[in-house]
């Protein structure tokens, strides 16, 4: 009860920028409220009934005055607009080296998957300090909104569509994690905490698998999904009669029967799995089953991570050198990435087993085997 904050903590790089603009607008708000209030009060007191003041020839119209008080708010508004737009574009444009976190919202919990380490967590998000983090969000059911006030981070989590924004935490601590889009009965309890740790702590945390009961990399997990759904029974290493190959599918330009062509990204991959008939690859018919309702968003993220690695044998070997995130290569994760590379290349034994990649050999032993 005695802890009464007036302003929220600033715990991200974006929050610093954000508050700067916030206080500019706040100053303008105070200024104009004061001016309007003071002038109105002055006029009311001066011209109240019964005072002896000059009331002759009250003006009825004054064009220069009207123009003045139209143009001043307009110019100020445009300046604020430009600053706000710049800030928003920044917020929506993640840098290439950002750490990836996947977020699934569902009634009434948050689920996160760390792309780099594969650690999964619910209603909690652990982040390293000083590292840009790109969050890709999707909802399993209704619309939610991922809201971390101390980061000034908020974005809606929409079903059927990936949304994205990024943030760089700058302050170690524990912060609020809210759902800020009404999502049903327990909306107000769909929350938790964000833990910002030092890079070393984060590395240690993710190497130990966080709170994940079955630590595994996302690619490994994706492989399990791939096998469970038996994708390889049709999608082999080359285009054949039944289905096109998925080797190197990510980032490839593909032509479709409706005459369109698209570069395959996460959204396209997801659509091709959930609603395959929206766009069918040229040369093929409507033969793939629709996975709408048959695969959860929580499985789709790892599956896509896995699909990204297919056909990248060579790339995977070099994988650890050209890590996606040069700012962030804690050794443990680097080691596990090696294992991931090994998985792709089919040489799992090249990495020494640790607590976290114990399962690697097992998974890789069944590496894409059938269907070849």
């Amino acid at each position, binding site marked *: 009860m005695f802890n*009464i*904050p*007036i302003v*929220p903590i600033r715990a991200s790089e974006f929050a610093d920028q954000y508050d700067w*603009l*916030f206080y500019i*607008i706040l100053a*303008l*708000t105070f200024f*104009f*409220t004061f001016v*309007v209030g003071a002038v*109105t009060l002055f*006029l*009311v007191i001066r*011209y*109240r*009934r019964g005072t002896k003041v*000059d009331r002759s*020839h*009250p*003006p*009825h*119209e004054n064009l220069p005055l*009207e123009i003045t*008080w*139209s143009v001043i*708010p*307009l110019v100020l*508004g*445009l300046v*604020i*607009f430009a600053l*706000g*737009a*710049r*800030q*928003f*574009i920044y*917020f929506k444009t993640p840098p290439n080296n950002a750490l990836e976190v996947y977020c699934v919202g569902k009634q009434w919990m948050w689920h996160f998957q760390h792309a780099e380490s594969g650690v999964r967590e619910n209603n909690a998000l652990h982040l390293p300090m000083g590292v840009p983090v790109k969050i890709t969000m999707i909802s399993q059911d*209704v619309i939610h*909104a991922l809201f971390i*006030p101390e980061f*000034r981070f908020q974005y*809606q989590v*929409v*079903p*059927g*569509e990936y*949304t994205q924004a990024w943030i760089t935490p700058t302050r170690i601590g524990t912060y*609020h994690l*809210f759902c*800020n889009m*009404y*999502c049903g*009965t327990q*909306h*107000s309890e769909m929350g*938790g905490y964000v833990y910002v740790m030092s890079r070393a702590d984060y590395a240690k945390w993710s190497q130990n698998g966080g709170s994940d009961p079955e630590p595994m990399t996302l690619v490994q997990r994706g492989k399990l999904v791939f096998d469970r759904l038996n994708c390889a029974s049709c999608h082999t290493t080359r285009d054949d009669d039944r289905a096109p190959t998925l080797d190197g599918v990510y980032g490839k330009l593909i032509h479709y029967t409706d005459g369109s062509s698209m570069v395959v990204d996460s959204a396209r991959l997801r659509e091709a799995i959930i609603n395959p008939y929206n766009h069918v690859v040229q040369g093929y018919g409507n033969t793939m089953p629709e996975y*709408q309702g048959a695969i959860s968003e929580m499985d789709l993220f790892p599956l896509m991570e896995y699909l990204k690695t297919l056909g990248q044998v060579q790339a995977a070997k070099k994988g650890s050198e050209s890590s996606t995130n040069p700012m962030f290569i804690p050794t443990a994760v680097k080691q596990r990435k090696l294992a991931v590379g090994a998985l792709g290349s089919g040489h799992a034994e090249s990495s020494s087993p640790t607590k976290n990649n114990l399962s690697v050999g097992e998974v890789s032993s069944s590496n894409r085997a059938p269907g070849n």
Partner: protein
Amino acid sequence: MSTTAILTEPKAKVEKNYLNVDHSIKSWLLTGDHKRIGIMYLVTISFFFALGSMFAGAIRLELTSPDGLFLESETYNKIFSAHGIVMVFFFLVPAVPAIFGNFLVPIMIGAKDVAFPRLNLMSYYMFLTAGILFLIGQIMGGVDTGWTFYTPYSSMYSNSQVGITIAAIFIGGFSSIFTGLNFVITIHKMRAPGMTWFRLPLFIWSIYGTSIVVILGTPVVAITLLLVVVERTMHIGIFSPDLGGDPVLFQHMFWFYSHPAVYIMVLPAFGIESELITAFARRRIFGYHFVAFSTLAISLLGFFVWGHHMFISGQSMYQGVVFSLISFLIAVPSAIKIFNWMSTLYKGNIRLQTPMIYALGFIGLFVVGGLTGLFLASIGTDVHLSATYFVIAHFHYVMVGGSVTAYLGAIHYWWPKMTGRLYHEGIARYNAFLVFIGFNLTFFPQFIVGYLGMPRRYHYYYFAPEFQAYHVMSSLGASVLAISLIVPACYLTYSLFLGPRASSNPWGTHGLEWTIASPPITANFDHLPIVTDEVYDYERLDREELLEENADGIEEPMPVKTF
């Protein structure tokens, strides 16, 4: 034109007027008289306002504790939904146009009635049907979607009375459309001789702008909500991605109406404000043309800013930026209005009676409401504030600080005309200050707690108990606000029966409605008025008054020191 008001006319002889011309219930239920329909709306809408306020009271009480006090989450969600639906669709949207628009539009333009009296009566019955349907929905268990009915929650997930509530809003929407149509035609075709467009009181301009928005916007929300019901009952995929629909599409269609709806709620308040300021500053409005055309500019631009409700919804980044730009443009006409009202005070002869106190309070609150809109129109700062209590505070400053304050001002200003009775000015004046204090105490803390990150529509906030102090403050303010709304209900009701009778022009103000009896006769005017003076021509009024004063030596025509 002028008035030498006799404060308490002898009670003996009461002229026939629209209220006492026929006392039978049938004569009320089947009336075509715009004034009687206005009064019926006043009664119905006051009921819904009281209902909505009680829902608000329950919300504020519940939020005094981070763990809740007496409600289940499900009940809480239904209560805030009901609060929003009642206040938006059954109070703010119809209040001023249906009550004061109905009562005043024909009189102010010098007509006997609206263009289509029977359509007008039908509008009322559709509104009543809508209200009853909504109440049936409440009795059957209520609705828990919030007033925004966001899909796919409303169409696929909610287990509450979505269908019947949407039916209620659908029917209520058509009531608004018919009323709007009636006003547009009335204003176009039935103005008295000499009542040119630029002699129209600004209230008429604002009702005109509102009606256009209602006619263009309401069908869209009606169809949108109908589509929700179609998806809900027939599982035809429109908004739900599971059925191949697009959930964000709903937001586009909903806000395409519901942003203009904000102007439906606030434009009539602007009109009232112009009337009150001129009446109590006793001078012509400054920049009549600018105020009139800024109304139309707001009506038009209001249709192009809906996307600012969706900055973080996943719509394209560039789309968001464009909507942000247009949202800043719409700030300009609102600023023009504020500055013109302030300038009207200059060299005025200001009487600080109850309606004027509300009018001045309106300026202050609306300025705060409008300026805090900048935080939300700026796409960068909206990221953090979107859907927090900051937004709640912002739109309550506009809707309650603006619309409700103007509504209360209007009731106090036109009450003598509508009922023929005077209320107790002293109590009313103090109460106006109480409204101002209670309102600010309720909603100002919400700006701070919103910036701190309190999400809206939260039943519990035990994750963040540090917000409690602000919630307690807010609930305290709500209690004050509640008292300040109960008090007028009491003294206005009292005045109906025991208040002194009002003269035809108790405020000594300018305008056609003050040239006729209070309350007016059924036909409004004894003979067709011919308008020869400019709008708000207080100089002429003052001259005439002076002549009469000199003639018969009556010292002060200004009345309303009552009892």
